[in-house]
C-alpha cells in the first residue's frame, strides 16, 4: 500500500470512529435521561402521596430493625411523615440524586418538587422560588415553622431544668444551680431569612443542621430542619441544649453566655470578660454517675482517651517526625526537629497539667464522643418525659419513633445500599466514572463523622431506644440495647 492509501485509511478512521462513538454516546445519554426522569417521577409521586408512617409493633428496639422496615421507602422523597404533616426527608436520596443529575446536563432545570425545606434557596432567591409571590409565601411558611421550633426549644429548656431539679441533693445544690443557670442562658438562634445562600453556608447551614455554638452560647438552627416532626425537633433541640452542660462545657467558666477559654488553650483570643458562672470540674460534676455509665460497655461505651494514651500519641507523632527528618535530611533539619521537640514538650505539659479538668474536651483529647453521648442522654430524657405525658398509645408510639427519624433519614445502611444500586444502574452506561464514584460512596464508611460522633446505630440502640419509656411506647422487643443511665 502506498503512503497515500495509508493516509486515506487513517483519515477514514478518524472521521468514522467518533461518529459511531457519538451515536452510541447519544443513545446512552438518552437512556440515562429516561432512567432519571422515571426516578424523578416516582419521587414526585411519593412526595404527593406520602402517608403517615405507623411504626410496626413487636419488632426489635433497634436502629437496624426499624431501618429494615423502611427498605421500601428507599426511593421515596420523604422517609417519614407524622400525623401533623411534618416530614423527614430522605437525605441520602437527595445526595445521590444531585450527583446523578449532573450526568445529564440541562435535562432537569426544575427541582423534583417545590419544597423549600429540601431546596432552601427557595426561601432566599426569587428565581428559585418561582417568582416574588411564591418567595413571600415560602418566607411566611418558614416564619410559622420558626415560631413552632422556638416553642419546642422553650419546651426542651423547661424540661431540662425540671430534670436537673430532680437530680438536686444537699451535696450538689450549687453545681445543679450552676447547670440550670447555663441552660436558662442559652438562646435560640436562626439565620436571617433575607440572607443569600452563601451566607447560609457561612452560618453552618450548607445542609440540614443544628448546633450549640460555644462562642455565642446559643443553639443555631438551620431553616432546612424546620419542617421536621415535633418529636424529631424536640430530641434535636434538647441534644443541642445538652451541650451547654456537657462534661466538657462544664469545665469552662462563662462570662455571661460566652465561655472563658483559658490562656494555655488559646493565648491569642482576648478573654470574654469576668467569669459570671464558674467552671465545674469533672470531679464535682453532679451528673458524674451518668457520665461514668455512658462510658461503660453496658451503655454506649463512649471512648475517653486516658492521659497515658494522649502522651503516647504525642511521643509517636514526634518519633515519626524524627524518622521523616532523618529520611529527608537537608541542611538545617536538626533545627526543625529541635523546634518540633519544644512543641511536643509543650503539648505534653498541657496534657499533664490540664487532663483532669478537660479530659472530656475535643480541645484536649482530640475527640468528643463523651460530649455527644451526654447530649444524646439529655435529648432522650426530654423525649421520654414528653412521651410519658401522652395518653393515646398510638400518638405516644409515633412520638417515640419520630425522635429517631432524623438518624434514619441520614444513615440507614440498607437504604443507602438500595439507592446506590438504583442510581448506579441509571447512569452506568452514560457516566461510568460517576457510577463508579457512587458505588465507592455507597460502601465507604464515613470516618469523618465517626471522628466526632459515635455511629448512629449505637446512639439509637444504646441510648435513645434503651429508655424504658420509649420501649414501652414503641411496643418493641428489647434487642441490642444498652442499660439506662440514671
Amino acid at each position: 500500500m502506498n503512503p497515500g492509501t495509508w493516509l486515506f485509511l487513517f483519515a477514514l478512521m478518524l472521521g468514522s470512529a467518533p461518529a459511531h462513538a457519538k451515536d452510541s454516546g447519544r443513545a446512552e445519554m438518552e437512556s440515562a435521561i429516561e432512567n432519571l426522569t422515571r426516578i424523578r417521577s416516582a419521587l414526585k409521586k411519593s412526595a404527593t402521596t406520602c402517608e403517615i408512617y405507623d411504626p410496626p409493633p413487636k419488632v426489635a428496639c433497634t436502629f437496624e430493625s426499624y431501618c429494615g422496615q423502611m427498605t421500601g421507602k428507599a426511593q421515596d422523597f420523604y422517609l417519614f411523615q407524622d400525623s401533623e404533616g411534618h416530614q423527614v426527608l430522605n437525605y441520602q436520596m437527595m445526595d445521590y440524586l444531585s450527583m446523578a443529575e449532573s450526568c445529564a446536563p440541562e435535562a432537569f432545570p426544575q427541582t423534583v418538587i417545590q419544597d423549600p425545606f429540601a431546596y432552601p434557596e427557595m426561601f432566599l432567591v426569587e428565581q428559585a422560588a418561582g417568582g416574588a409571590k411564591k418567595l413571600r409565601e415560602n418566607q411566611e411558611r418558614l416564619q410559622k415553622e420558626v415560631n413552632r421550633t422556638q416553642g419546642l426549644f422553650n419546651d426542651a429548656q423547661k424540661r431540662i431544668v425540671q430534670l436537673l431539679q430532680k437530680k438536686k441533693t444537699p451535696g450538689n445544690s450549687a453545681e445543679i444551680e450552676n447547670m440550670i443557670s447555663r441552660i436558662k442562658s442559652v438562646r435560640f438562634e436562626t439565620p436571617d431569612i433575607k440572607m443569600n445562600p452563601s451566607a447560609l453556608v457561612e452560618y453552618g447551614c450548607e445542609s440540614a443542621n443544628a448546633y450549640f455554638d460555644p462562642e455565642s452560647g446559643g443553639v443555631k438552627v438551620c431553616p432546612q430542619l424546620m419542617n421536621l416532626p415535633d418529636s424529631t425537633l424536640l430530641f434535636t433541640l434538647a441534644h443541642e441544649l445538652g451541650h451547654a452542660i456537657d462534661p466538657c462545657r462544664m469545665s469552662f467558666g462563662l462570662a455571661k453566655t460566652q465561655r472563658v477559654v483559658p490562656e494555655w488553650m488559646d493565648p491569642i483570643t482576648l478573654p470574654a470578660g469576668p467569669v459570671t458562672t464558674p467552671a465545674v470540674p469533672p470531679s464535682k460534676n453532679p451528673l458524674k454517675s451518668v457520665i461514668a455509665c455512658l462510658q461503660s460497655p453496658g451503655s454506649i461505651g463512649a471512648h475517653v482517651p486516658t492521659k497515658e494514651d494522649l502522651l503516647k500519641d504525642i511521643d509517636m507523632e514526634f518519633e515519626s517526625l524524627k524518622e521523616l527528618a532523618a529520611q529527608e535530611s537537608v541542611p538545617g533539619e536538626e533545627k526543625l526537629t529541635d523546634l518540633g521537640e519544644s512543641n511536643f514538650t509543650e503539648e505534653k505539659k498541657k496534657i499533664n497539667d490540664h487532663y483532669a479538668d478537660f479530659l472530656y474536651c475535643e480541645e484536649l483529647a482530640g475527640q468528643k464522643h463523651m460530649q455527644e453521648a451526654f447530649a444524646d442522654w439529655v435529648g432522650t430524657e426530654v423525649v421520654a418525659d414528653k412521651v410519658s405525658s401522652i395518653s393515646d398509645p398510638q400518638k405516644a408510639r409515633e412520638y417515640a419513633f419520630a425522635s429517631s427519624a432524623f438518624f434514619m433519614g441520614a444513615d440507614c445502611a440498607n437504604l443507602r445500599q438500595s439507592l446506590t444500586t438504583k442510581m448506579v444502574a441509571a447512569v452506568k452506561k452514560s457516566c461510568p466514572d460517576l457510577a463508579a464514584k457512587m458505588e465507592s460512596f455507597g460502601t465507604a464508611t464515613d470516618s469523618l463523622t465517626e471522628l466526632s460522633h459515635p455511629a448512629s446505630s449505637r446512639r439509637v440502640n444504646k441510648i435513645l431506644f434503651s429508655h424504658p419509656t420509649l420501649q414501652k411506647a414503641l411496643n418493641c422487643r428489647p434487642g441490642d440495647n444498652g442499660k439506662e443511665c440514671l
Partner: protein
Amino acid sequence: MIGLWFLYSLTAGASEILLERSNHLGIHKTDLLRMDGGKYYFNGKDLGASLPAPVLKAWQEMEKGPLPVKGLSCPAGIYRFTQKEKEKTKSQERRGCTSGAAYAKLIRSLEVIRSHARGGPR
C-alpha cells in the same frame, strides 16, 4: 511537535481533589474534582477539556483549597480536603470547620462548578 503536545496534555496535570464534609447532625456530603488526560471531571462527570472562564476560575480556587482558619473546635461540622497529584504517592490533607467566611467561599466555587455540570442554575 503537535503530537508531543497531545501526549503531554494526556498525561500532565492529573490531579484529584476530594472534599468530604460531615455536619453536626451527621449529614455527609462528598464531592470529587479530577483532572486527567487534559479533561475536567466533576463527581465523575466529564466536563470536557476546557471550561468557561468563571467555571475555570472556580476550579482554580478549589485547587488552592480552603484557607486555614484557626479555631478550637468545629461545632457546625468538619470537612476534610484531600488533594492528590497523580505523580506523587502522598496526598495533602487539610481539615477545618464547615462554617465561617473561608468555608463559604470554598463552597461558592464548588457550586459554580456543580451548576455548570448540571447545565445551569435552577
